[in-house]
């Protein structure tokens, strides 16, 4: 008889794997990816493919160089690449996603120990760096080829290149009344269904919500971060309205910009968000407060990225102070 396997219990394992979770995130992002291509054309698809390929290749190269096992089959680099593409305007030059993915994977993820060790969301950190390094590329918004905003500005933007694009305002910029944004707000339905200016993955809330429902159903994410995040933004933008207390357009705020993408897909990144249930709610509320403050009072029209990054670095502290009460805990003070 061959020797029996002797190992410590348990002897059975659930079917869930890291790769399956990452694949689920990719699947959940597909409706929004399709919406991006539908509203912004083939160039959006090109940016996504380039971004994903460079993320996967960067991961493989870095792991090879560091003589570590190459783990690109766990789908996590695909997720990062896709998330980064979602956070880019559809008009960026094609080398930008390559640089962005390299930053996300090499600098933010692998340099800190790889999967599970990044202290910030890699795609968002890369986006913030790109925004600082190439602000013009990162804030040049083109009209979509379809949808409510497609005829709003007389932009002659073509799929072939970014050079034709002109800087035009996103709904959030209009909402904020930034200079040179005397345009009308696009109708709410177009914000929800898609077809307004913005990053290529955030255009359709509907598509993002379909994917989010899938992630919740698969229990890849819990409701805690997204609901507390979006709820806080809704509450604050309603209370702190432009014409005094309780005059804000909360509905418009929560469906505009990157909130849905950020709340369901970015703030829920496992490595950079709390593991405790209470901590996750604190994370969501914190993101909501910072997003609202930036949107209402800050220099930028949008604050989702910075709010998540700031809460990312607070995550170890939050985990520490929200340790769950254990069964039968005997408190020293009782």
């Amino acid at each position: 008889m061959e020797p029996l396997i002797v190992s410590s219990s348990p002897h059975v394992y659930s079917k869930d794997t890291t790769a399956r979770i990452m694949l689920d995130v990719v699947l959940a992002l597909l409706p929004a990816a399709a919406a991006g291509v539908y509203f912004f054309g083939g160039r959006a698809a090109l940016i996504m493919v380039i971004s994903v390929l460079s993320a996967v290749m960067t991961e493989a190269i870095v792991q090879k160089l560091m003589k570590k096992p190459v783990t690109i089959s766990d789908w996590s680099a695909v997720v990062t690449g896709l998330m980064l593409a979602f956070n880019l305007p559809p008009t960026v030059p094609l080398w930008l996603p390559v640089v962005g993915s390299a930053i996300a994977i090499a600098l933010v993820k692998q340099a800190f120990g790889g999967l599970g060790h990044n202290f910030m969301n890699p795609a968002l950190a890369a986006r913030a760096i790109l925004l600082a390094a190439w602000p013009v590329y990162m804030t040049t918004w083109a009209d979509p080829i379809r949808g409510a905003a497609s005829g709003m500005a007389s932009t002659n933007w073509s799929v072939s290149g970014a050079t034709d694009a002109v800087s035009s305002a996103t709904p959030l910029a209009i909402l904020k009344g930034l200079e040179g944004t005397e345009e009308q707000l696009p109708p709410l339905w177009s914000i929800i269904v898609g077809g307004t200016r913005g990053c290529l993955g955030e255009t359709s809330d509907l598509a993002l919500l379909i994917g989010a429902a899938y992630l919740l159903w698969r229990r890849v994410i819990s409701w805690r971060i997204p609901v507390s995040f979006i709820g806080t933004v809704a509450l604050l933008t309603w209370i702190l309205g432009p014409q005094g207390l309780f005059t804000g357009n909360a509905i418009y705020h929560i469906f505009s910009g990157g909130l849905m993408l950020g709340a369901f897909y970015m703030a829920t990144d496992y490595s950079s968000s709390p593991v405790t249930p209470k901590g996750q709610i604190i994370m969501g509320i914190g993101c909501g407060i910072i997003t609202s403050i930036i949107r209402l009072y800050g220099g930028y029209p949008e604050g989702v990225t910075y709010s998540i990054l700031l809460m990312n670095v607070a995550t170890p502290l939050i985990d520490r102070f929200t340790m769950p009460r254990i069964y039968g805990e005997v408190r020293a003070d009782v």
Partner: protein
Amino acid sequence: MGLKVFGFKGGVHPPHRKEGTQDKAVERMQAPKLVYIHLQQHTGAPCEPLVKPGDRVKLGQKIGQPKGFVGAPVHASVSGVVKEIKQMPHPAMGEGLAVIIENDGMDEPDESIIPRDMESMDAEELRNLILEAGIVGMGGAAFPTHVKLSPPKDKKIDLVILNGAECEPYLTADHRLMVENPQDIVEGLKVIMKVLGVERGYIAIEDNKPDAIRAMADAAKSVSGVEVVKLKTRYPQGAEKQLIYALTGRQVPSGGLPMDVGVVVNNVGTAAAIARAIKTGMPLIERIVTVTGGGVAQPKNLLVRIGTPFKDVIDACGGLVGQPAKVISGGPMMGIAQYTLDVPVIKGTSGILVLTKQEAETPEPGPCIRCGRCVEACPMGLMPLFISAYALKGDYDNSERLHAMDCIECGCCSYICPAKRPLVQSVRTAKRVITERRKRAAAN
């Protein structure tokens, strides 16, 4: 069954895999040629042998005497001649001293075997009988029952819970016992209640065993103070602390015992063993073992003599199918992997699980992705990922600070982990080191 059930926090839903044996009536296995009776069958100190090689022993004769209060005697499970007393593989401890008896096939009972009547015995006599019958927890931990039934004076016990949850996958020994012998269980419960002077008793069963719930409810119908409670099927519902919380909302304090919250928990098998020991006078010399898994030809629930080697038990179930990859004593969540089939059945052996290569797949661990599933699954409210990370670094102080010692080792964290990390395994290591340190500190 109108009792409010609290449930418990966390837990997992492993596949039940009970189909193979849950409808199979318990069969009595023929006693083997040789039995190997371990002198340590329980938590506590091992027994001193009362026999020597060459002695003739009778069925039910006491052959090992415990050295301390926490211990239980062991008895001959066959009549015959003592061949040897030597170190043998032990299903829970690697190795231990065992009395080897050659069965003469006569089953000639010892003179001490006298049927008794529980009604005519007082609490002290019953407790002593339970001790002398060598009764220990039949759920797997094998804690001496008479110790559980001797709470200190200052602990007021108001509730006895019989654990019929059987939440481990594959196992059906308790299930069949409840379906086939509910009367014994109820009688045993009455004895336990009498010994403790308690008016209230619950028999708790998971809702995936409706036939057992029906049978038990029927048997307990006319007994005052006894109630059958249906529990949601979720692992580890049968863990003592989770069971107590589910039924009473009381939490056993960290580092404490169920008696600290006025509860004593016993397995349904233990209750039945008590009832039979009184009725027949025969001490604990056999138990029901679920023999199952893909590596067994005919999975069965077998009534097996204590000391029967696993090999013989498996042969009584049609033998092995192909090459076994892993043999487990107990269930797949908390059971112990065996290195040989020569290991014998002890009082706590609830199941023999033979897993094929396919079933026994041990996945490669990957890095922790901090998904938090282990935190959600931990029924004790711990954070396994952090305790484990510290333990793997050898930082046991921090493991202890994060309540490593409260881990009940149910294995939910390792089961649910998508990265297949050795969570409970490393927490177990931490617990061992911390216990050693505390012992050393206490000795100094």
